[in-house]
Each structure stands twice: as structure tokens, then as C-alpha cells.
């Protein structure tokens, strides 16, 4: 049986949810930003704002210069998360094979569901209607194709509120003039390298010698060749598939640029504690600690250290990251953003240490987690943290997925 894959891509998701929540914003240019101040970065402009050239990643002042009448709203992560979970629940009513590609995109394998829900186009329209009726007055673009790669390409062809089908007999025709950078998996660097060889479209890429691609790019060269022909055998995993976590991190843009090392250290301690808490919640420990520092001139410094042991202790993570931080002359360079992450993860063995000092620390962390689970994050924490100026994270990690579980090993 030929596969039928749907790709659902919510349109201007954060802005659309903000407008659905507050109908006074409907039809108006809206900028969803991490913060409302001059340091805020636009995470999602509404389609009305995009007409003025406003794009994701611009600062709020830049966006306001292009569209002075734009209304800036603060990002509300919980609203987007709740809505995303409801979308997933809706999708799972049609198929158990639902893969959330991001908070606002999902693949559905609807192969064999025609007898239950009608032809694919009818099912896609049903999904669109039920989203608007049951979840929120927001739109999506849907792509229908024989595989994930082409379904995602199709959903991007018509926005907003689009519905595009790529059938098997139309693949070559569609891909002939499709720019390579529109294929999922081909980013700016790869696009540049291909253009150096005169390859701008998928049609051109498909006719390029695969041996040359393999010599230049290794295994990826063969994938590029297959992609250019619209071939993709990857599956949409079933709902019970667990994604392996590779790293856990937190970062934040400081309220003002600072040259004060002590201020940076307090932020770093808070971030380290947030990372450690998420590690413990997922029963992880990690060995590699990475520090990210962005200067006021937007140059980013990244450095990491690998410990000889695994840890889930916020103080340990902070001390390691702080050692890296000590190499930089904060007083001269200044700091705009600081972040810390832990990778090289392993599943934590739930066993108390035999050594009393380590055992005491484990019990202390466990007690802190129980209290914070009951009363909220940072209900109890280290005395050094400035609780009055705790960084509140309104943003969602690009890696977040609804119902993301923790799993180790291969499925």
C-alpha cells in the first residue's frame, strides 16, 4: 500500500494563539517577543506584521521601526504548550503515528485510514475545521505526499491556511524548479556549497553525479541525491516512541549588559540549578558542561569541559561552568547572554552513595526536589541566588515536543 503522509504546520503559531486568546488583536500586526523592552527579540510576528517586512529574530525596536503600529505582546509559553498538547490529542484521534516535529508542526501517517475518515484531502480539511472549532481560531497549512520530506515541502508551498498535495506522478515536476534550500535538511552552509558547484535547484541536484556528492559530503552526499529525487523512507514513529535526549540546557539574555562578574555568576547559578533539576526529573546525569557567553557586540563564546564523573548536581555544574567563565575578562568584554548545558548523558542509577558526604548531598538534593515539586521551582534553593531578580523563562526550547518522554537506547 502506498504511504500517505500529512504534514501539519500551524501558521504564525505564537502570534495566532495570542490573537485567538485576545480577539482585540485579530487583524492587527502583532509581535510576540521574549520581553517587551528594547532588548526583546521577536519570536513570532503575525501575518499582518510580516507584510511590513518584520521577521522572526529581529529585535523589538527593529520590528517597530518597520511597523510602528505593531502591538508587542509578551510570549506566553504555557498557552502555546497547552494548545500544542491539545493539537496532538486531536491528531491522535486519526492515527497513532503522530510525530511532533516541533511545537507547531506534526507529521501524521494516515496510510490506510481512507475507509474510516475519507480521502486524504477530506481528512486534512476535517483536521483544519476541528482545530478551529475545538481548540482555537487558528489556521494551519497542510501538505500531503507519499513521504515526510515531500509532505513538509508541500505544506510550505501555500501559506497561510494552505492545502497542497504532491502525488507520485508529480514529484519530478515539482522538484525540477524547487530551490535546494527549501528541502528540509539543507541549510545555508550546504546551500552555499552546492551553489558553488552551480546547483541551485533539486532538478540540477538530481542530475549531479552522486559519486562526486559522496566524495565531497560522505554519506550525506547519497542522502542529498535521494532527497533531490523526492525519495525518503523515514517512518513516522508511533505515539509510544521515545526520543533520546542528547543535552539539557538553559540560557538567558540579561536585563542589561553587564561587566559585573558577580551578576553573571548569580545568573549562572540559577541556570545551573534549572539544568540540574531537569536532569534529576529525567533521571539523567551528564559529564560534559558547556558554557555559552554572548558579548554586547553579539559575538558568542562557547567552551566546554568534560568531567571524569557524571553529575546532576547544580552546584557541581555551576562550579565547572564558573571555572570556564573565569577565563574570560568579563569586566572588559561585558556579557549580554549567558547559558549552560549538560551533555554526554547517561541514565542515572538510583542508588545512594556509600560515602557519607556524597550520600548527604544526594539526600539534600532529593529533599529540595520534593519541596520544589510541591510548592514550585525555587521554593527552596541556594542562599546565594537573588530570588528577587530570578530570571523568568517565557520561551520554549526549539527541542520541546508535546509528550516528550525520556528514553535511552535504540528502538
Amino acid at each position, binding site marked *: 500500500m502506498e504511504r500517505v503522509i500529512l504534514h501539519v504546520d500551524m501558521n504564525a503559531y505564537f502570534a495566532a*494563539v495570542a490573537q*485567538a*486568546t*485576545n*480577539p*482585540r*488583536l485579530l487583524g492587527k500586526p502583532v509581535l510576540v517577543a521574549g520581553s517587551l523592552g528594547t532588548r526583546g527579540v521577536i519570536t513570532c510576528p503575525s501575518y499582518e506584521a510580516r507584510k511590513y517586512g518584520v521577521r522572526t529574530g529581529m529585535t523589538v525596536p527593529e520590528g517597530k521601526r518597520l511597523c510602528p503600529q505593531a*502591538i508587542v505582546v509578551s510570549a*506566553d509559553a*504555557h*498557552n502555546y*504548550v*497547552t*494548545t500544542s498538547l491539545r493539537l496532538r490529542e486531536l491528531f491522535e484521534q486519526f492515527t497513532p503515528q503522530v510525530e511532533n516535529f516541533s511545537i507547531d508542526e506534526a507529521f501524521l501517517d494516515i496510510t490506510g485510514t481512507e475507509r474510516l475518515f475519507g480521502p486524504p484531502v477530506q481528512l486534512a480539511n476535517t483536521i483544519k475545521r476541528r482545530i478551529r472549532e475545538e481548540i*482555537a481560531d487558528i489556521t494551519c497549512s497542510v501538505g500531503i505526499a507519499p513521504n515526510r520530506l515531500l509532505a513538509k515541502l508541500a505544506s510550505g508551498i501555500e501559506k497561510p491556511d494552505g492545502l497542497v498535495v504532491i502525488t507520485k506522478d508529480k514529484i519530478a515536476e515539482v522538484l525540477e524548479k524547487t530551490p535546494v534550500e527549501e528541502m528540509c535538511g539543507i541549510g545555508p552552509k550546504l546551500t552555499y556549497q552546492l551553489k558553488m558547484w552551480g546547483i541551485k535547484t533539486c532538478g540540477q541536484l538530481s542530475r549531479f553525479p552522486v559519486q562526486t556528492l559522496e566524495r565531497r559530503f560522505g554519506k550525506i552526499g547519497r542522502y542529498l541525491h535521494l532527497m533531490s529525487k523526492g525519495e525518503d523512507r523515514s517512518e513516522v514513529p508511533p505515539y509510544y516512541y521515545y526520543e533520546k535526549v542528547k543535552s539539557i540546557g538553559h540560557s538567558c539574555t540579561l536585563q542589561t549588559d553587564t561587566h559585573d562578574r558577580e551578576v553573571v555568576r548569580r545568573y549562572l547559578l540559577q541556570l545551573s540549578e534549572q539544568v540540574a533539576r531537569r536532569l534529576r526529573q529525567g533521571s539523567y546525569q551528564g559529564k560534559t558542561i558547556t558554557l555559552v557567553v554572548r558579548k554586547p557586540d553579539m559575538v558568542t563564546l562557547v567552551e566546554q569541559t568534560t568531567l571524569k564523573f557524571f553529575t546532576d548536581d547544580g552546584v557541581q555544574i555551576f562550579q565547572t561552568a564558573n571555572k570556564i567563565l573565569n577565563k574570560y575578562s568579563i569586566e572588559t568584554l561585558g556579557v549580554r547572554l549567558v547559558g549552560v548545558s549538560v551533555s554526554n548523558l547517561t541514565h542515572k542509577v538510583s542508588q545512594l552513595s556509600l560515602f557519607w558526604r556524597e550520600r548527604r548531598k544526594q539526600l539534600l538534593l532529593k529533599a529540595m526536589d520534593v519541596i*520544589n*515539586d*510541591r*510548592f*514550585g*521551582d525555587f*521554593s527552596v534553593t541556594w542562599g546565594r541566588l537573588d530570588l528577587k531578580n530570578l530570571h523568568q523563562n517565557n520561551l520554549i526550547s526549539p527541542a520541546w515536543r508535546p509528550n516528550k518522554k525520556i528514553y535511552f537506547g535504540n528502538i
Partner: protein
Amino acid sequence: MTYQSIGEPILVYALFKNGKLQPLSFKWRQRVYKIAKVTKTWSSPVGKYKLHHFGVMDTQENFYQLCYSEEDFTWTLIQTWNEG
């Protein structure tokens, strides 16, 4: 259009029906606001409890965000958007 961040306690008249909570009207600063429409609901965790958020419009089409705490059964007016 004016936005205001409020964060004040309010009195709410609400209906519990079919497993859902629906605010019908609220009293804020001695004035009663009749809710014409609940536009959206969502929740956020605080420890083991949840805050339940309601986007609502009154009869003058002004927008309010109400928040119900399941920990202590209190309501808070979070923000308003209205003309003027």
C-alpha cells in the same frame, strides 16, 4: 487600545458543568463585569498544583485574562486590553 498588567484578586461567579469550569462574571474594583465569551483556556504548573487561565471578553468587547489557582481556590485578574 490599552494594555494593563494587573495582578489583583477578584471575585468570580463561575459554573462547574460537564467537568469544565466556566467563569460567568467577575467583580473588580467594585464594578461587576459580565463575561460575554471565554476565548481560550490554558494551564500552567506551580509545584504540584495548576493555575488555570481564562481569556474572556466582556459585553463591551474588552479583553481580560483571569487566573484560577487550584491550590487555594482564588481568582486573580492578570491583565486587561481595552479601548482608551
